[in-house]
């Protein structure tokens, strides 16, 4: 069942992605889809490190940045007639930049996995950002480096001035990259990487060198991150040193983990959810980053296999529990979720309104009612709901039947 459903879903998604720009979708949808395709490639490349090889990196954006800046200079070079390369092949240059940087930095960082690797990646990331700020002649300082992608030299003859055209180019490269990474995860190298993640001693005993397997995987991840950076450069045509920064790295880490690191296509789900959240939630509330963080923590605590894991487990769990079980579980947990959720939202929005808005005395609209943050009533209602929800959660946990564990992530 799953064997048919997943490729089918992928094909449907691809079809929609191809069809949307031609059914008169607005500029907004196209910009969103382009961003999604870039994020997808980037998150997939991140998971080559985290999910497949067990390397938790806090500096993956450095390789994205290498691709971004290499491509910006490359596009300018093509435009000036110095580089004989059609615009469609610029991502190859970005990938090369990502690969070279990953190969250099990988030599010193993949000696150990786990915490030491994480710290080195963080140190290298900080070094890269601070170093980039020191060289405005290369990275453009705060203003950044910009270019113009309309270079009159392309394979297809398109000018790539319109968002639809650049979207198609980005989509093609994103699909190629995702397919390549899925394929690589199924080669003997990909399997060995999984083995290194789970038990490096044993791999060493079998005669393979974990160091070099980690190194190759790290280089692959860097290459595709550089490619994603190229797509970024082609789309936005401008970047400053902040693309190398810890925020970008944190974002891809959160997206990948939310999606589910134990599934090959988990990062795609994560990129989808995070991009949609970023755009829709940020229009809805100013405190969206807080909710985003809460979601991340909740996933780590309660669903370590991510949203894809929840998606995959649901049919089986439903079948096992039957209708009676489902209603029972809903009756048990729905009030908890509603109480905690609404209580948190009320408190967060009130807090935000008091400390960050222009005029705290102005009434705010929350859940279709207009309230004043100056009176105590909404605060008490919010806190009461949250506390009641937590109390109920505690009670439920104590009386709940031990759940059947379905092979959690190692």
């Amino acid at each position, binding site marked *: 069942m799953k064997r048919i459903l997943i490729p089918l879903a992928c094909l449907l998604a691809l079809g929609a992605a191809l069809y949307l720009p031609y059914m008169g979708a607005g500029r907004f949808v196209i910009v969103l889809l382009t961003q999604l395709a870039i994020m997808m490639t980037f998150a997939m490349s991140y998971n080559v490190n985290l999910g497949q090889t067990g390397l938790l990196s806090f500096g993956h954006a450095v390789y994205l940045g290498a691709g971004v800046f290499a491509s910006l200079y490359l596009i300018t070079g093509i435009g000036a007639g110095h580089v004989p390369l059609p615009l469609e092949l610029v991502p190859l240059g970005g990938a090369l930049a990502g690969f070279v940087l990953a190969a250099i930095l990988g030599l010193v960082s993949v000696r150990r996995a786990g915490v*030491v690797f994480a710290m080195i990646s963080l*140190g290298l990331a900080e*070094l890269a950002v601070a170093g980039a700020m020191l060289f405005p002649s290369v990275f453009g300082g705060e203003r950044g480096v910009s270019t113009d992608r309309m270079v009159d030299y392309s394979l297809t003859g398109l000018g790539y001035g319109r968002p639809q055209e650049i979207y198609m180019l980005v989509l093609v490269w994103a699909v190629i990259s995702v397919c390549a990474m899925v394929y690589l995860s199924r080669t003997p190298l990909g399997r060995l990487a999984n083995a290194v993640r789970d038990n490096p001693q044993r791999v060493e005993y079998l005669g393979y060198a974990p160091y070099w397997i980690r190194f190759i995987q790290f280089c692959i991840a860097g290459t595709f991150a550089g490619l994603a950076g190229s797509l970024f450069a082609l789309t936005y045509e401008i970047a400053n040193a902040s693309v190398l920064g810890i925020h970008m790295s944190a974002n891809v880490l959160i997206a990948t983990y939310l999606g589910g690191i134990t599934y090959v296509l988990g990062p795609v789900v994560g990129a989808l959810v995070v991009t949609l959240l970023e755009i829709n939630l940020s229009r809805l509330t100013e405190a969206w980053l807080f909710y985003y963080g809460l979601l991340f923590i909740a996933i*780590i605590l309660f669903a*370590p296999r991510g949203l894809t894991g929840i998606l995959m487990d649901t049919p089986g769990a439903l079948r096992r529990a039957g209708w009676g079980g489902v209603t029972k579980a809903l009756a048990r947990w729905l009030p908890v979720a509603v109480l905690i959720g609404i209580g948190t939202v009320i408190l967060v929005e009130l807090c935000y309104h008091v400390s960050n808005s222009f005029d705290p005395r102005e009434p705010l609209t929350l859940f279709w009612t207009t309230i004043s943050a100056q009176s105590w009533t909404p605060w008490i209602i919010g806190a009461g709901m949250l506390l009641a929800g937590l109390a109920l959660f505690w009670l439920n946990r104590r009386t709940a039947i031990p759940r059947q564990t379905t092979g*959690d*992530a190692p």
Partner: protein
Amino acid sequence: MDTFIFVLVNGLLYGMLLFMLSSGLTLIFSLMGVLNFAHASFYMLGAYFAYQLASFGSFWLGLILAPLLVGALGAAVERFGLRVVHKHGHVAELLFTFGLAYLIEELVRLIWGRQPVPYRIPESLDFTLFTVSGIDYSAYRAFMLVIAMGMFVAVLLLLKRTRVGLMVQAALSHPDVLWAMGHNVPRLFMLVFGGGVALAGLAGVIGGNYLVTEPGMAQQMGTILFVIVVFGGLGSLLGAFLASLIIGITQTLMVTMDATLSDLIAALGGTAPDATGLFHEVWTIAPANLAPVFPYLLLVVLLIVRPRGLLGTRES
């Protein structure tokens, strides 16, 4: 020479502040194997709590209560968060503290706003203690130094001379045996986590008004802390102490230097290179600009030369 001594004393002060944070971090790491990403966030919370308490009552109220509050919060985080994710392995724990750091930063923005808050030095300590060759030394700096030294001695005594300290030392190497002997190891973990985080909170209380109390302070401090614990050798308290002082003093010294490479070449009798083209800034970067980068440079060099750090005994 006098300036040099002042810089040295300031560097020492900064180093001690760093040590107040890194000691807890390295202790938690060696005990639980968790590198607490949110450690600097608790430092930030300490500063904000102290600011809030100072606006209610006095600075001294904050000095006593804020670290306790932060410690209690840390213990709760260990009990209801870390302990839950522990079964998913160290990467999950690291990710949890990472998410927590993210969340605490947003929480601080939510409650106290995006701008720095006016957390000030108490008036009773806001005077010049002594003046040497025209440079004032404020009483508050001396006070910070006293607190930091006092904390250092207290932690040392606690670890070496008390029963709890003995248990912590035992748990460092053989937690299972300690548990088998009937001691409550999970509770010990909770206490150490709470205690370490409370120290970070105390550093926030005395450092928040010396530096700036703003939502970005945790991230700024956080990465330097990791450099220190890795540099000193993961899990080594003495290593963390040395690394804190080395980084604190070097960074402070570097800020006062403004000679550049082209100055050096000119001094040696050469002609200064042309300041155009890509990467031409190499010739005009002063050590003062390099000060923020220096710890990371040190970290990378050290990890290539000696991956276990200054005094570390193991590599991971």
